[in-house]
């Protein structure tokens, strides 16, 4: 059918199917890819456009409804006519990865117009903004910036402010607030094929036969590839892909899939990890345990199996003074005088990453060169891996990942969608796009493992810690390496008896997720410590100080103790009435990693300085880190540097995991800048014959004058420098040579830490927990860019609040199907769920261990939050929560 409409002021005629939604014609027919398609169900708002001036979820609007309408998309608000709202988003950093940003901005512009008309330049309240923005979700957690951006724009802070007068931290910010940024999801090629998976409806089954003959005869079907890598031809979770089809369009691919016949032998399966423990439970890998995928970033240590339970041999090294801990436990259990036993089982559910941009890959093979666009956290490494796997010379493979719509650990390495798209491209010699549907993303995209931790903490009357014992079970679905127990060692010395087990179930595979099982380890540990303080009638911080004499974290304790909310909190259990205030504190720690191989290339061209690095940005701000390091080192303006990343042809950049990115690229960017400075100075001497040239305050000064970079560029370019791989750094290098790959790690745990203080209210009638304010203190060394560091921290807090209060996967026990396959049933926090947040950075204590001083913070901001909530709920009500998430159904009746 045909629809006549106006988009961004121009008349458009759209030919489309009657079933098409507006988002499809806007993106595919009109080519306006600033409008994103994410949930396809009216939940996330990424597809928001204005239709006759009103915000619409274009994924839930029939395309034919646009007939005769005026449609405005984000592209209406371009670089040359930025709206005050866009300027405010830039300056208040209301964005990270940017995938949700166009939707938010379109809605915010509508809100701004309404607000200004009715209220002039009064600032709207957070409540008002939250209800207006209720139809948008941001997985990066940029909400705090969004609140302040909308308030500032409405108050007129950006009326008539010129774009050149804006100071903002995100180097690529303008591309993101205008919808110009092209993510892999937005990439198209002429003649591009669309690939789709055929997936198993069974949670455990042997594939007996597959008949693709009918499908392959379909007009428009170009290739079918088998993607089931299991040598036993067994699928182990519902929704596991078996085949992929590439066809000229999605409809053809879907028809072809429907024509494929697969014969299965259905096998018994297990969904509930608790059932999976039992000796008679169906076994997930009955044939062999060799092929279990790895859910962690480290290597898989040897282990032994019993049914679905895997015991890693590293358990041998987890404990310290194990005997002492056991003895203390036995004594406490037998009721020995003067001992207090805090013994509980704590558990946390799986948490899916839910990146707004799904896993997606576009591959194009021109017969000689392979170009791959991928939403990946490891652009450099991926180039290598693809070359190796497909036996193509490395120089003939280019991976692009200029913009990535969130990843959080789930998009590392040569994973299924990439392997499949490349295989299909090689086979068809045509460009192929493979994007997970949202259902697939929820099933295949990865998740943080579950935890069940039996923890006992023994203390004596003098508040000495006598021992901690913990038995931890984690479920990574069909993968291994949950690792809940190891993180218990990141805090507090003392006797420990720790055991860690994987328990497998017929789900997809877990993937690394921001401090994988850190939040669950601290959920158990920090609530136990809090309970110890209760039993000892001691101040919880005093108790922690006693057990944790570390000076860096000591500063964080000082900070919390200076906060009025902490000082003035009511006594635990002293409140009655329906609404109770809870104040809780918890600490966390993490190791930090870096990559010695990272380099930055800096070119002085006629257009100015161009920095490049094969790193990527998923929202944490890699371009900004590089740009700022160079700008500060040279004393020049940040925006004057062109920073190019997200390309595997550039000099090697780190994989973005384990909070490694900033720590790796910041020092090397400084090095590149200082090399360039020397090169300019010596070239000025040699080529221009200047006398006594020196670099000062962003300029070259010499006997008789000065020259700025622009002038130098015209006279000296091209000049090029590339920073070196890092030299010897003692411990770092040793770690860097470990078999886990080229990653370095800092296990000097005395230098980092985070502390979370939360104030919340508990509605004891309705079982609702409302976080009111979060204070997060972070000891992460030098803060290279406070605005971005804050944004990252907010994001960590918010993701943690998600798993603490609302996120939960739901399964069908009889079919083994994931039922929370959409974003309305998997409930990530919205803007209204976000409390006020205050972040404090303590920069001391770090210089000694990490040269350059920068360290990642993604995990540290995330790991103590759940426990702080638990402690605050206890403080308010006297009820100690043990099972997350704390949805009303779990709270009601308990408080």
């Amino acid at each position, binding site marked *: *059918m045909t629809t006549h409409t106006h988009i961004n002021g121009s008349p458009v005629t759209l030919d489309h199917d*009657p*079933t098409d*939604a507006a988002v499809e014609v806007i993106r595919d027919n009109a080519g306006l890819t600033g409008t994103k398609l994410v949930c*396809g*169900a*009216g*939940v996330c*708002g990424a597809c*928001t456009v204005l*239709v006759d001036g*009103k*915000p*619409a*979820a274009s*994924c*839930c*609007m*029939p395309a*034919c*409804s646009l*007939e005769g309408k005026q449609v405005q998309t984000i592209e209406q608000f371009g670089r040359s006519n930025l709206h005050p709202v866009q300027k405010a988003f830039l300056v208040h950093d209301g964005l990270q990865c940017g995938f949700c940003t166009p939707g938010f901005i379109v*809605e915010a512009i509508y809100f701004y117009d309404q607000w200004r008309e009715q209220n002039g330049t009064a600032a709207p309240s957070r409540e008002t903004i*939250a*209800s*207006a923005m*209720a*139809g*948008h979700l941001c997985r990066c957690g940029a909400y705090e910036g969004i609140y302040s951006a909308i308030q500032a724009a409405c108050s007129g802070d950006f009326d008539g402010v010129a774009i050149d007068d804006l100071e903002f931290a995100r180097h690529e910010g303008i591309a993101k607030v205008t919808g110009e940024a092209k993510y892999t999801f937005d990439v198209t090629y002429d003649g591009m094929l669309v690939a789709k998976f055929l997936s198993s*409806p069974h949670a455990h089954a042997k594939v007996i036969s597959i008949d693709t003959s009918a499908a392959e005869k379909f007009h428009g079907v170009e290739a079918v590839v088998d993607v089931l890598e299991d040598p036993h031809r067994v699928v182990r979770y519902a929704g596991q892909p078996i085949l992929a089809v590439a066809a000229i369009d999605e409809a053809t691919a879907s028809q072809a899939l429907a024509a494929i016949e697969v014969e299965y032998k259905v096998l018994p399966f297990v969904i509930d990890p608790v059932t999976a423990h039992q000796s008679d439970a169906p076994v997930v890998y009955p044939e062999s345990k060799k092929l279990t995928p790895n859910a962690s970033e480290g290597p898989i240590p040897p282990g032994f199996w019993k049914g679905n339970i895997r015991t890693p041999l590293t358990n041998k090294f987890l404990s310290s003074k194990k005997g002492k801990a056991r003895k203390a436990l036995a004594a406490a259990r037998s009721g020995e005088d003067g001992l207090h036993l805090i013994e509980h089982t704590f558990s946390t559910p799986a948490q899916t990453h839910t990146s707004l941009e799904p896993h997606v890959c576009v591959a194009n093979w021109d017969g000689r060169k392979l170009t791959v666009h991928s939403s990946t956290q490891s652009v450099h490494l991926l180039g290598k891996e693809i070359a190796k796997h497909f036996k193509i010379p490395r120089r003939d493979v280019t991976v692009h990942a200029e913009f990535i719509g969130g990843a959080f650990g789930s998009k590392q390495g040569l994973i299924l969608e990439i392997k499949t798209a490349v295989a299909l491209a090689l086979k068809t010699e045509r460009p192929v796009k493979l994007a997970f549907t949202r*259902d697939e993303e929820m099933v295949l995209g990865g998740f943080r493992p579950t935890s069940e931790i039996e923890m006992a903490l023994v203390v004596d009357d003098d508040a000495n810690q006598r021992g901690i014992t913990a038995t931890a079970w984690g479920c990574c679905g069909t993968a291994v390496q949950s690792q809940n127990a190891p993180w218990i060692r990141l805090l507090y010395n003392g006797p420990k008896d720790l055991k860690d087990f994987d328990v497998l179930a017929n789900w997809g595979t877990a993937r690394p997720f921001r401090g994988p099982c850190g939040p669950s380890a601290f959920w158990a540990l920090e609530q136990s410590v809090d309970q110890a303080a209760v039993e000892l009638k001691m101040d919880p911080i005093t108790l922690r100080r006693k057990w944790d004499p570390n000076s860096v974290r000591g500063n964080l304790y000082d900070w919390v103790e200076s906060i009025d909310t902490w000082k003035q909190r009511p006594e635990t259990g002293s409140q009655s009435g329906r609404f109770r205030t809870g104040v809780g504190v918890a600490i966390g720690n993490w190791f930090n990693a870096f990559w010695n191989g990272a380099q930055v290339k800096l070119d002085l061209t006629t257009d100015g300085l161009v920095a490049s690095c094969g790193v990527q940005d998923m929202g944490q701000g890699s371009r900004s880190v590089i740009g700022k390091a160079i700008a500060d080192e040279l004393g020049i303006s940040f925006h004057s540097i062109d920073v190019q990343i997200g390309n595997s042809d550039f000099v090697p950049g780190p994989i973005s995991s384990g909070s490694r990115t900033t720590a790796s690229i910041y020092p090397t960017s400084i090095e590149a800048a200082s090399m360039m400075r020397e090169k300019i100075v010596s070239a000025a001497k040699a080529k221009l014959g200047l006398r006594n040239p020196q670099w000062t305050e962003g300029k070259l000064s010499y006997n008789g004058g000065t020259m700025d970079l622009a002038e130098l560029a015209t006279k000296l370019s091209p000049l090029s420098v590339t920073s070196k791989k890092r030299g010897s750094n003692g411990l770092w290098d040793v770690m860097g040579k470990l078999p886990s790959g080229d990653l370095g790690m800092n296990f000097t745990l005395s230098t980092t830490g985070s502390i979370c203080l939360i104030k919340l209210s508990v509605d004891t*009638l*309705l*079982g609702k927990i409302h976080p009111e304010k979060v204070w997060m203190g972070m000891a992460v060394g030098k803060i290279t860019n406070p605005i971005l560091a804050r944004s990252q921290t907010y994001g960590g807090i918010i993701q943690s609040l998600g798993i603490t*209060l*609302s996120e939960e996967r*739901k*399964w*069908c*026990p*009889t*079919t083994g*199907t994931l*039922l*929370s*396959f*959409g974003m*309305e*049933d998997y*409930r990530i*926090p*919205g803007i*209204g*769920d976000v409390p006020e947040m205050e972040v404090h950075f303590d920069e001391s204590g770090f210089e000694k261990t990490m040269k350059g001083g920068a360290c990642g913070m993604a995990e540290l901001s995330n790991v103590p939050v759940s426990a702080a909530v638990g402690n605050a709920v206890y403080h308010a009500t006297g009820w100690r929560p043990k099972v997350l*998430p704390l*949805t*009303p*159904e779990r709270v*009601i*009746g308990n408080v």
Partner: protein
Amino acid sequence: MHIQAKSIEEAVRAHSTEGEFRAGGTDVQERIRAGNLSLPIIDIQSIAVLDEIEFHESGTTIGALTTLESIGNHDQLQRDYPAFTLPTRTLATPQIRNFATLGGSLCQRTRCWYYRHPELGCPKKGNSDTCLARDGNHQRGVCFDFGPCVAPHPSSVGCALLTYDAQVEVTGRGKISIGDLYGDGSDPTREHTLEKGQMITHVHLPKAIENEKAAYYRMMSRKWAEWPAVEVVTRLMLDGNVISDAKLSLGAVANIPFRLTEVEELLIGNPANDDTFQSAAQLSVARANPLPQTGHKLKMVVACVLHTLQQAVATT
């Protein structure tokens, strides 16, 4: 495959054998993505004059194509029918409310995850005779088990309109009560009683009552934009401190929204105080027969009923 109806007659004719109306499309489009729709699509959005709100002597008439946004933000409707506009203003998201219609909100299909899943069978989809949820996962299901389907009825608006004894005008059936629109929940294939060729054209609300006290609560884990685990619409009419009339309905706990008549009877004639409200709240689950995984909803119903009663009297 597709009919663009320009009149009620044209729409109804097209629908007489098969197919599905599409109004705002906010429910339909989502189901198209999951391949869950009966064709042809009959677009009714451009039928004229079905989007008007008319106040008259005997009450108020609202066209079926009126958007939820224009209802929820309508000043006079907010004054006259607060228990109707409250849920209308807070359900779903602003973008959905801007284009979702009154008719669509009443006739939308269930949000049961089995029904919405592209691969699973369900009697409501017509691809299976058995309800997988009953023996599978029904944690978000009903705790008042009225019939074969154990998924909660989705319509918050239907729940609210019940408390006004609203009537819906249906082609070929004339005015029927909102209760009759939903029936008794015994039909395993549908959420309402509309047959082929039957379309809602208008909703009629009785004359407004002055000074009614209304409250609405939806139990959610987050602040906004989430399907409720329980929702309660409460209207109280007071004579001094005595409750002269009460209308309460429950949503999200049965396969149809329904009135808590026994609670209403208890309330009427009693003082509006905490004792009354506590007994009323306890009584609200008298008819409940929860499923194995929905027992938790009982506490929620009691709490929500109590909360809305307290809220209602607190409104001025």
